[in-house]
């Protein structure tokens, strides 16, 4: 095909495109070659375009499941026949009265079967106890699936989510006094990564010193870990406020990897309600969206906290203004990819100045037994159940933990006084940024933030004023849909032409 009038009469950059696509005539090609010999930029552009083509053609391809064609054929079989098929003699001979009645019953039968199948699928995950997320299997079964698990964490790293170390497991006791010491950023991030991975790989790293970068190089068959972000903030367990520790221990830190996203909301904004509503709505959006897309199962949101004894005549969402809480805990299930996207979008809000990122981290699962034996017992004995300014529809008089219904979001607002009750919360709410600090905090500033911790005074309950409401989003990481095997790009012989 010859270029038409839309092409410039003299060789220019568009000619390069046409040449690359074999759309120039021999004479035009000759002209272009001469032009490229005289103009290095034109020659460079040709090389860049060629390289771009190569890069695009080398993009790896994901493979559909082997049953895709069968799925299509099944859908074809269950759909009404197309016009060209219904006009065939075969269909016409089947159109007797008996055939129509039988066909109708067949349809009803097929419909009933489909409904039954749907019910089984819907309720199966809820029967019996909650099974651990498949990601845990990685931890239990060693390196067989470790690459997928590591891949998840690599994604987290790329998106700047730091790792929160359960230091009691990963740091030897003799180093306990140094846990809060801020190491160099590189050591901190890479060490955390290695420690988390060692926990993932069958618990090999439990009780061992936190491995450093050298450990990363020895990991077998893992997804490549090339970049360890230097600005990831690593939190230690004891740095968490007690309310969060309690939530983690209570609600499944031993059953699935958890990421923690902490967002600081200026108290005055929080009390205006709009931000609160927005965060809540986002959580609900996540739930609805995740369920609709069948990615993380129907139970996307879970309650985190013991129910709050309702006030007399109490029901849903009682507010005791104007006390703003120190901590709000929401829990949601996401895949790592969803989490990273979520953090990205939160970051956009941070840049707008609506929120402050106080901290971000991921906590590696503790052994459930360990949590039961130590943490839970300890905390339950020393920390009374929080009573919040808000409670979500707790049934009157009931003290038993309430099971949330699928898709329900429960926010537990913990009053300021709670922060002083728990034993392990040495840092308490001290991670809150300085009072009145409204400037967006970006991830690169995390160390500065950490250093600023001691200067943040805990507001007194009597003061009635809080600089920041800490919105803790506990993200239970669930694996994405099974990764399908990858295949190399087909040869460029244009198969199927």
């Amino acid at each position, binding site marked *: *095909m010859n*270029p*038409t009038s*839309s092409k410039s009469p003299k060789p220019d*950059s568009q000619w390069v*495109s*046409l040449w690359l*696509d074999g759309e120039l005539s021999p004479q035009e090609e000759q002209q272009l070659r001469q032009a490229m010999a005289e103009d290095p930029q034109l020659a460079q552009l040709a090389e*860049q*375009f060629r390289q*771009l083509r190569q*890069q*695009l*053609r*080398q*993009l*790896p*391809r*994901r*493979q*559909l499941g082997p049953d*895709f*064609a069968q799925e*299509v*054929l099944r*859908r*074809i*079989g269950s*759909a009404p026949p*197309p*016009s*060209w*098929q219904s006009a065939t003699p*075969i269909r016409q001979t089947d159109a007797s009265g008996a055939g129509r009645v039988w066909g109708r019953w067949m349809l009803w039968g097929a419909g009933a079967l489909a409904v039954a199948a749907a019910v089984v699928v819907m309720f199966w995950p809820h029967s019996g106890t909650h099974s651990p997320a498949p990601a845990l299997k990685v931890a239990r079964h060693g390196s067989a699936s470790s690459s997928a698990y590591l891949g998840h964490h690599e994604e987290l790293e790329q998106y700047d989510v730091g790792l929160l170390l359960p230091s009691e497991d990963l740091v030897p006791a003799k180093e306990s006094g140094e846990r809060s010491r801020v190491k160099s950023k590189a050591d901190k991030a890479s060490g955390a990564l290695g420690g988390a991975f060692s926990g993932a790989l069958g618990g090999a790293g439990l009780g061992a010193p936190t491995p450093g970068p050298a450990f990363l190089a020895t990991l077998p068959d893992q*997804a*490549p870990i*090339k*970049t360890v972000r230097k600005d990831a903030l690593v939190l230690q367990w004891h740095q968490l406020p007690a309310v969060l520790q309690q939530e983690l221990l209570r609600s499944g830190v031993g059953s699935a990897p958890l990421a923690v996203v902490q967002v600081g909301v200026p108290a005055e904004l929080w009390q205006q309600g709009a931000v609160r509503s927005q965060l809540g709505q*986002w959580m609900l*959006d*996540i739930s609805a*969206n995740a369920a609709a*897309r069948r*990615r993380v199962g129907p139970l996307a949101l879970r309650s985190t906290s013991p129910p709050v004894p309702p006030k007399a005549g109490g029901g849903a969402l009682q507010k005791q203004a104007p006390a703003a809480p120190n901590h709000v805990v929401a829990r949601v299930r996401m*895949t790592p*990819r*969803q989490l990273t*996207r*979520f953090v*990205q*979008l939160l970051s956009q809000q941070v840049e707008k100045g609506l929120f402050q990122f106080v901290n971000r981290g991921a906590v590696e699962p503790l052994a459930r037994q360990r949590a039961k034996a130590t943490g839970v017992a300890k905390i339950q004995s020393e920390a009374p159940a929080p009573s919040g300014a808000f409670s979500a529809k707790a049934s009157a008089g009931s003290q038993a933990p309430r099971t949330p219904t699928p898709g329900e979001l429960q926010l537990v607002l913990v009053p300021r006084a709670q922060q002083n009750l728990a034993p392990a919360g040495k840092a308490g709410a001290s991670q809150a940024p300085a009072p009145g600090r409204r400037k967006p905090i970006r991830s690169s500033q995390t160390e500065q933030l950490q250093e600023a911790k001691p200067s943040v005074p805990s507001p007194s309950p009597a003061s009635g004023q809080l600089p920041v409401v800490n919105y803790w989003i506990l993200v239970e990481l669930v694996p994405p*849909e099974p*990764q399908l095997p*990858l*295949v*190399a*790009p087909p040869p460029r012989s*244009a198969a*199927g*032409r």
Partner: protein
Amino acid sequence: MNEDQRWIEQTLNGQTEAFGNLVRKYQQRLYHALVCSLENEEDARDILQEAFLQAFNKLDTFRGESRFYTWLYRIAFNLAASWRRRHREASFSDQWSGSEQDGPWEEPSSEDQTSNSLERQEECQLVHQALRQLDVEHRTVLVLREMEDFSYQEIADVLHLPVGTVRSRLHRARLAMKQKLESLMGQDIRES
């Protein structure tokens, strides 16, 4: 008569299984193109399935004037365009959850696992990121030409555009892609 035509005729004669051969032949290729165009594997899969269903229902209208794959791609492209219209006003949740598996892209398993693979993986991610940042129009035309190896005329048929428009759009798409890549690579270097 090529095998596509034979399978089409068999399907039209009531042998639905023959259509399965067409599905198996083209599913992977079309899926890859849709994933690159839509940036969402699950949506790409849904649209792919719907495209095959529509192709089956309209099979009697395929006259063999173009390749079956081009015809099939046109159906899929129209479905994808409808999907984009529906999702133009994406909610917050749509934005964040729409790319569950859209990256990082992994290396083909057949590739070497040496340190080169790390760089190649990173390069693939950057290429994919740049592709994602392109306008849909540019992205689509790039996918059709560079990854699907469609001719200008075929692209024009699929997109219902004059060939001249395809030509200029493709060139602009390449320039835009080049700029995006340079920007991303510069950013990557600065960060490292």
